[in-house]
């Protein structure tokens, strides 16, 4: 999980270009230092272009060296980038894990849909809520996800999409039709989940949904 508590950006009088860095360095930092991802299939805020800039080997080395100075490390995923911090307190890591916990249920839900939601998929929250309405198993899964405001299923799905869009796993492609696109960074969540080892617990749990489904 990328860092979410970045140090405030230290800016001096010299600009990025003076160090031979791309002029979008500030934009890149602004996105990634918030713990967000830069995905190659993103269209908003010139995301794709930023990805191409980081992906350029020359730029990458320079940016890496530059950010390493302020103890950030650019991590490369499959078609996405994010920051990691070189050393972090356990409490912060724990907090991040807590944040991540919620995603386990969300991804479980997404992977259980008739048409699995994967990287590049385009969907509308209403489609998901409709499917959940028609399928008890999915409905239970959705209800299990803890969200603050959830009077209706649709609102809950909207909240989820909103959360994921804020965390740069989704992108609101069309505000009018409320159409979202799944970013390449979604692979980060999948990878993380796939790396979890599950141990059988002796205690009985009453969820009929069963275990996590990986795709």
């Amino acid at each position, binding site marked *: 999980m990328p860092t979410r508590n970045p140090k405030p950006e230290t800016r001096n009088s010299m600009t990025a270009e003076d160090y031979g860095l791309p002029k979008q360095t500030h934009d890149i930092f602004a996105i990634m230092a918030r713990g967000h991802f830069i995905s*190659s*299939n993103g*269209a908003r805020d010139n995301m*794709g272009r930023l990805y191409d800039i980081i992906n350029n080997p020359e730029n990458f080395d320079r940016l890496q060296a530059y950010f390493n100075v302020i103890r950030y490390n650019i991590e490369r995923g499959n*078609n996405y980038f994010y920051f990691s911090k070189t050393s972090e307190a356990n409490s912060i890591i724990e907090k991040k894990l807590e944040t991540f916990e919620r995603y386990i249920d969300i991804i479980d839900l997404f992977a259980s849909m*008739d*048409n*699995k*939601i*994967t*990287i*590049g*998929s*385009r*969907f*509308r929250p209403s*489609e998901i809520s409709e499917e959940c309405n028609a399928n008890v198993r999915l409905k239970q899964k959705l209800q299990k996800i803890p969200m603050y405001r959830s009077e209706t299923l649709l609102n809950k799905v909207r909240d989820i999409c909103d959360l994921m869009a804020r965390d740069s796993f989704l992108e609101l*492609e*069309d505000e009018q039709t409320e*159409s979202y*696109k*799944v970013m*390449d960074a979604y692979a980060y969540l999948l990878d993380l989940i796939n790396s979890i080892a599950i141990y059988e617990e002796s205690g009985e749990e009453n969820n009929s949904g069963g275990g996590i489904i990986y*795709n």
Partner: protein
Amino acid sequence: MENCRILNRIVEINITNVKYADIELCGNTCFVGTNNYGKTSLQRAILFFYSANSRGLGIAQSQKTFEEHYFRFENSYLVYEITTEDSAFCVMVYRHNKLVFRFFDAPYNPDFFLNANDEAMKIKEVIGGFEKRGIYISNQIDTFERYRNIIYGTETDKQLSKFHLLKGNEKYQNIPKSITNVFLSSKSSIDSRFIKDFIANSLTTENSSIKLEQVERQLRQFNEKYQDIETFLKKESGQLVELIDKKYDQVHMLKGTQMDLADKLGSSLRFAETQNESIREAAKQKEEELEQLIEAHDTFKTNLEEKQKDIREEIGYYDRTIRDANKKLKEYKEKNIEQAVEKNAEREKLQVDLNIARREYDSLTSNVSSIEQKYSSLIEQLRNDKSAYINKINSKTGEVFNHYNELQLLQKNEYNKKDTELKAKREETIEEITAETTAKQIEFNELKSEEKVIRNTRFYEAEIKGLETELAELRAVNYKNKSERAIKTNMVATLTREWEAMELKLKTSLSNQINKINGEIIKIKTEIKEIEDKLNVQHDAFYGYLEKHVKDWHTTIGKVVNEKLLFRTDLTPEFKEEASKTLYGIQLELGQVEVVSKSIEEYQHEKNERLAQIKDLEESLNQFQVANNEEKMLAADRFGKQLGELKEDVKVLAYSLELADKREQKLIEELEEWKQRAGTEIETSLSGNRAKLNLIEEELSVLNKKKNTVLTDFNVQLERLRVYNEERIAELKERQETEISELEVEKKNQVKEFEDKEEQLSKEKETNFKAKGVDSKQIKQIDNRIKEIQEALKEIEQYQQVVNDYLKDKRETFDKLPDLIQKKEEFVKTSNDMAGQMEEATRKFNLKRMELNKQKRAFDEELIEFNNGINFYTTNFRDTPVFTKHADIIDRAEPKRTNHNIMELCTQMLKNESHFNEEYTAFQRYVNEYAGKFRFDNHFNFIIRNDATQGEYERFAQNLRSFINENKIEMSLAETATQIGLVTDSIATKVKELSGQKDKIQHIITLIAEDFKKAEFEESKLIEFIKIKIEESDNKVYRLLKKIEEFREEHGLVYSEGLFNTDFATGSKREISTRAVRLLEQLRSAIKEQDQEEIRLQDLFELKFNIKEGMNETGWTHKIDSIGSTGTDILVKAIIYITLLHVFIKESSHRSSSDFKVHCIIDEVGQISAHYLRELLKFAKNRNIMMINGLPNKSGLESHYRYTYQFRKEDSGNVRIFPSIVTEVEA
């Protein structure tokens, strides 16, 4: 009346709420009236005369249009009267659906329009009136444009050309625009932007701006396409395409396999259902057949065995008989039976000889019978004694001999008995063993024959044959496909070559055309440069001097002067009156000489012509490029489609070959498997057989060993018995011989005594005979002979019994022996034949049984298989989604036997389905990821909905494949390359067009600045100076537009070739293209940022003013909020407007036309002081401009105007306009 052309009067008949108004305007005019009384409406009506544009009168969109508001009635008329140098003409405006004009050649007369009742007539009547009066009235002028042409003197129709207010040049449109702009400006502060707008609006038409929305749209379209292509060309996208393609193939193949399997499953199920009963029947029938066969075989076997038993008995009988006969024969031979038989044959003869000898003896002894008798009795006595003794000894010997013989016999009997017993026992044991061996041997033979049968049986023949046929067919199809693929690959290569050649041709022709046109453009540009140079220097050159100082110089000097000379600046011309019509004092008649000099307009015209030529050339190049691109696209379409189809075919063929190869491999494997199975089956059967055979062989060898051991055992026993027996007999014989020889010695000694005594007696007798003369010698001879014969007979008598027995045996047995042997052999042969027969029958039976068993087993197995299959299908398959998915195929299948069983098919389908699901999920994921890389509305239409069906995903992959195969990206590249060319070209053209007017602005500004200088306020010293200057625009969008235009100028049209790093893109072209793209991107974001609708002429430059009024100097500034008091501001503003108007009118009217005046309509001038107003009116008058102003009320200011009209609203709501009593101060 003025002595010049001027709008003298305006008459409103039924216009708005004015019934009739006749207003004179040939001097400064002032309208006094409260707000909303119609001052502005009237001013608009005056403005309409100049602008003739009902939309440019400042009427808000919410208000009624000019036509509707002014011309409410059929008989609404606006009449303008224009005075000329010598008379006047009028133009009337009325509504005939739309607004139309008519000119009539007479001063205004109310009678033309009003009837006797002072009511306005209808247009027909009005026209009729003119005709009646013989006044020329023009045809209806339908368009504003035509009307303006007439008024501003550019109409070519001779009848109408006289109705002009002034003679305008090509720029005359600026006059109405300027007048309109002055009227419409209502702001009190002086903003350079407004002046800029004023100037620009006066110079441009509505369409000459650059609509940024349109540019942005073009840019967006280009940018989106560019982005799409960039995304498409990315390495990761390419990798995804490959993955999608591969996965699609796999998914497709799996789907095909599943369908095939489903069909097979359906067929098998139907087959199983339909065949179940019949197979059951067939199995039962086979069982019955088997039973019958076994029964028949058993019967046959029993019969044969019985016969064999009889024959064996016969053989045993004959064998025994022959053996006994041989045994007897051997015994007889041992007894020298042949000699005995020979001797026996001599017996009769010996008997006869004996009788003869006795009779001879009797006759010889008849004389000496007493002696003879005495001695004979003595001798006889002796002989008797001797005989008795011999007999006694003999009997003793006989006794001994017999005793031992008896003992020997006993021994022999004992031996024989034991021997026989042993032998019998041996025979019995051996027979047992032999019987066992024979049984085993039979079994062995049966197994052997069974093995032979197994070896000759071809297991799974049908399957193997089927596979071989299928393999052969597959190979034939494969061969055909391979050759087809080779042909198509060749075709692909040929088409690709053709396409490349065509592309090269198109590219060459394009570059040739570009070079050619660029050359021409450069040439024309040089010419333009020359003309521009001339135009630039003309002011300071000889030409300028002539223009300024010599009237009509073109008809004089212009005919003889060298053009180069005209534009030299170093000639310092000076006007000398005395030689004005001569050339260095020589008078020339130049009437027939052609004018060689050209006017500025002509130069301008030439320049414009050349510019137009460049434009045409560029246009033609553009068209050529478009056509070239179209051709390219057509080629791409044609070849691409063909190639795509061919490639698809090749791919399909390659794929089917691959499949066929796999199938072949599979079939070979299957065939091999079947063969192996057949081999294994044989081996299994054989190995069972072999094991049995080995076991039997083992048992046989054990039995043989046992037989041998038993034989040896018995033989040893027999041998021991024999040895013991022989020893015993030898001992008995020895004892017998010893005792007999002792007796013989005793006998011999005693017999010798007797014989001695006999001889003594014989000698005594002989002596007595001799004494009596009898021949005793002859008697003795006869006597010896009798003795010999008797001896011989005795011997014969001894063998008599044996010979008799022999003869009997010979007669009964020995002579029949060959017959017996023959018969035995016959029986043996028959027995052998029967054994063969039995063996053959058994072999046949085994074969048949095996065959039947096999068939039955096959039926049973099939039945079991069917039932198991159906069970499996019902319990494990029917409820799965796989069944649901393929239900229609399974249910529709024809009953047919397949090589696979139902269970296998179900399992395979389930396995395949899970594999298919895995593959399909991956396929779906790749498609989503790929489509996700593109914009939602990308122009490739790579879009997949979230709830897309399998079919849609597959279609996506198909479309993607044909996109790749048909190389459609090339078309997209060509389109985008053309588009960037077109976009930059269109921007460049627009910028060029717009900035082309910058010169005009510069010119106008210069004139204005000059005019300001001339503004002689010296008298009042009210305003010391008004300065104006032009600066470069700081509009970001315009700067970028300009950059693009410069870029386009620098690189021409062809940089778009290197837009993407395709085959022919060289490094530098790529770089240029990248720059172009970047520029366009910058422009797009600048447009977004700036949020401006259009770039107009006024955005091309900045204007700055510097005004000094009294002690106040504003300094160079855009905006002058306040120079002094409001009145001062209005004054400055009005001065600036009037200056502008003056400059424009001067610029836009023909030089020859100078006797005219126009109006400057400025509505609210109420706050201006009388002093200032006077100054202003004077300032205007000096520039041939009449002022029309509005005042809210009478304040004394009106006294400075020539005409003052008052507005009053009547009770009816109508407005009356009437002249006020005026005391003109200045006019």
